[in-house]
């Protein structure tokens, strides 16, 4: 017990980075789990779907992984209150699986965008953001080609504005996301998905000048939440 599953699909490439950060920076117990070996969320303290290019981004980023038994089994996480985090391609998988609302479209500029951005947390709540403050600015890098978040106006106001939300600071939206959205969560914050990479922003030595290691709060929140609840 007390373990975090880091799911790996063919094409996932951020699993080792997430594992390193969770294990060595935050001293949490973790395991990289091949998707075919992942049968159930039961017995895990949390599940992280790392970034990469699962199934080569074919059809749409995340669309094929979303239909695997591993991801289909995550529906249970909602009922069992097991924290799920999707980073980048992991976020794309969660929206394709309808575990989070909206969709992620090709970037507005048609290109792969890789750079540090500033994001702001709204209504922090749940295991991934319990230690974040309202309005806290989190600096993290993005690296994606399909990160333009789309959601209809009704869902935005009725659901997302009542849930934890991570938005790009005005003027730093790297992909044309509606409402500057960088990450969304379920209302209780148990399932969170975001395009920026918190695992690449967890050590100050890896942060470029002028940026802080904004990803730390996500893993610190998880460590506290696993111990003491949220």
């Amino acid at each position, binding site marked *: 017990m007390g373990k975090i599953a880091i799911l790996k699909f063919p094409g996932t490439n951020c699993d080792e980075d997430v594992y390193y950060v969770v294990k060595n920076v935050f001293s949490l117990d973790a395991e990289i789990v091949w998707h075919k070996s992942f049968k159930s969320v039961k017995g895990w303290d949390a599940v992280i779907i790392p970034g990469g290019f699962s199934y080569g981004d074919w059809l749409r980023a995340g*669309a094929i992984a979303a*239909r695997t038994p591993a991801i289909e089994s995550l529906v249970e996480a909602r009922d069992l209150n097991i924290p799920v985090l999707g980073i980048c391609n992991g976020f794309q998988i969660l929206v*394709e699986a309808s575990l989070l*609302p909206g969709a992620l*479209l*090709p970037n507005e*500029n048609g290109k792969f965008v890789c750079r540090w951005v500033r994001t702001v947390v709204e209504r922090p709540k749940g295991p991934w953001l319990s230690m974040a403050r309202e309005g806290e600015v989190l600096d993290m890098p993005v690296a994606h080609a399909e990160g333009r978040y*789309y959601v209809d106006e009704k869902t935005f106001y009725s659901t997302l504005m009542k849930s934890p939300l991570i938005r790009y600071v005005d003027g730093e939206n790297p992909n*044309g996301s509606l409402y500057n959205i960088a990450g969304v969560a379920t209302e209780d914050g148990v399932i969170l998905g975001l395009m920026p990479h918190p695992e690449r922003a967890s050590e100050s030595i890896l942060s470029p000048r002028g940026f802080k290691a904004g990803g730390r709060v996500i893993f610190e929140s998880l460590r506290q939440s696993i111990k003491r609840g949220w």
Partner: protein
Amino acid sequence: MTSTYLVEVIITNKKGVRDPEGETIHKHLILRKGYASVQSVRTGKYLLLSVNALSGEDAIRIVKELCEKLRIYNPVVHDIEVRLRG
């Protein structure tokens, strides 16, 4: 008796969902080269399925069903057109 039918699936962004690729082709190529009569361009994804079915309608039904169930398109942002080739 089944026959083989070719079924086309065309996936495009819904109205209201921006299509930057289409916009770029329109503005920076077509209009720039003087084809002012072209009002807009929308891009999409094309799939051609070869299906054994009892009839053309049956083939379309199978493809429509799998498009929904396997989420070949994303209903949040896409429209699809399913039609027989021929």
